[in-house]
């Protein structure tokens, strides 16, 4: 059976880390399985872990009054979810929910934070990787914000006035 250390070593997110650091990280990890609908994290809770998704798919959710639960992004096999553990004040900003049965390695952020404080090389290596995750999330969010496939504002205005004209007839 493959150990958590093997899984971490093979994962592209941890590529080029020293074997010593991989051993340290693996020491903070455990395998978990989430059934569809189960939560990996809840908004506002202390962010004491992050997840390497081995198999399955999770949704990053925001609950709204107007639109109900909105999925911000989905994350699946081979990707990482959770950056709140490394950035103060270490609380989850979003819900993370399994969309299907999901196998993940949960890594203990609290434990890793302590190790990063002691070993800044490890801290730098992880921060560098997590800033990459953050940058990707930001890029995706900005593009989503543009609503590129939506009806353009000008167009909507045209349709609106047209609708009004029909209404008065």
């Amino acid at each position, binding site marked *: 059976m493959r150990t958590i250390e093997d899984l971490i070593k093979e994962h592209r997110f941890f590529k080029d880390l020293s074997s010593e650091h991989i051993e340290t990280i693996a020491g903070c990890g455990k395998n978990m399985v989430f059934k569809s609908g189960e939560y990996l994290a809840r908004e506002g809770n202390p962010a004491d872990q992050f997840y390497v998704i081995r198999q399955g*798919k999770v949704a990053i959710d925001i609950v709204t009054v107007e639109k109900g639960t909105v999925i*911000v992004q989905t994350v699946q096999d081979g990707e990482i979810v959770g950056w709140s553990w490394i950035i103060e004040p270490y609380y989850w900003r979003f819900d993370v929910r399994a969309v299907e049965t999901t196998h993940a390695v949960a890594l203990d952020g609290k434990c890793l934070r302590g190790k990063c404080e002691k070993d800044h090389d490890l801290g730098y290596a992880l921060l560098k990787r997590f800033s990459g995750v953050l940058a990707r999330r930001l890029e995706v969010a900005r593009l*989503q914000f543009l609503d590129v496939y939506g009806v353009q504002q000008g167009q909507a205005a045209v349709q609106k006035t047209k609708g009004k004209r029909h209404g008065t007839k």
Partner: protein
Amino acid sequence: MARSKTDPMTPAIFHVKRVIRETEDTFTIELIPSNGTTGFSFKPGQFTMLYVLGAGEVPISISGDPFEKRCLTHTIRSVGNVTRLLQKLKAGEGIGVRGPFGSAWPVKASQGRDVIIVAGGIGLAPLRPVLYTVLKNRKKYNRISLLYGTRTPEDILYHQELMKWRSQFDIDIHVTVDQAGKSWKGNVGVVTTLISRIAFDSTQAVALICGPEVMMRFTIQEFRQRGLNNEDMYVSMERNMKCGIGFCGHCQYGPYFICKDGPVFRYDLVEDLMKVEEI
């Protein structure tokens, strides 16, 4: 394109076979050439000018099967006067068609390569003829992938066909939406996030990209990181058009006329232009 004896600004008459609702604002219209005309040939990526009497003319990409010569198919988002009238047409009604016009996707030149098709929103329509062609000649291509991003699950075009193609297991299909509610089991995130999920050999892959310009730009950046060259990527551009044949001047894009030099361009030819504001 051969020089024609009739004036290229005068349309041929086609009759509506049927209008199919795709999504809330998008429909597919199937047309049959009127008596006396034998079939209709086009290359994937080309467009026609569709004319509705009393309303006007619009450029629309052909979205149908190139092997189906008796039926001309377009998928249209109804956003203006002409497109709204097109949506209301009934079977048997006549409309004007000019074309096909413009450049095509390099379907033949991509034989023997990995073909990656990336579509955003209605951008799937001009790429569907490519899918029909490569799937019909499946053995002539290596890996084929379709990455399709749209706004919401309700905006997904050609649902049935996507399911059918997916079940054939000879094409890798990934669909994502920008926004979804809790019941959605698929992907959420912009189409660029799908690129990391497909396998291709960057030394011999070709990417055919169609969607809003900003979506195409970010898709290209992602492919460059994966090792694709500018010469291996193709984009389809869009501008105002009144004639389709280089006379009206409206669709100028730097040195190009999108109607006759495009709409499909190899990316290296338009790379500089895509970065210029208001060009």
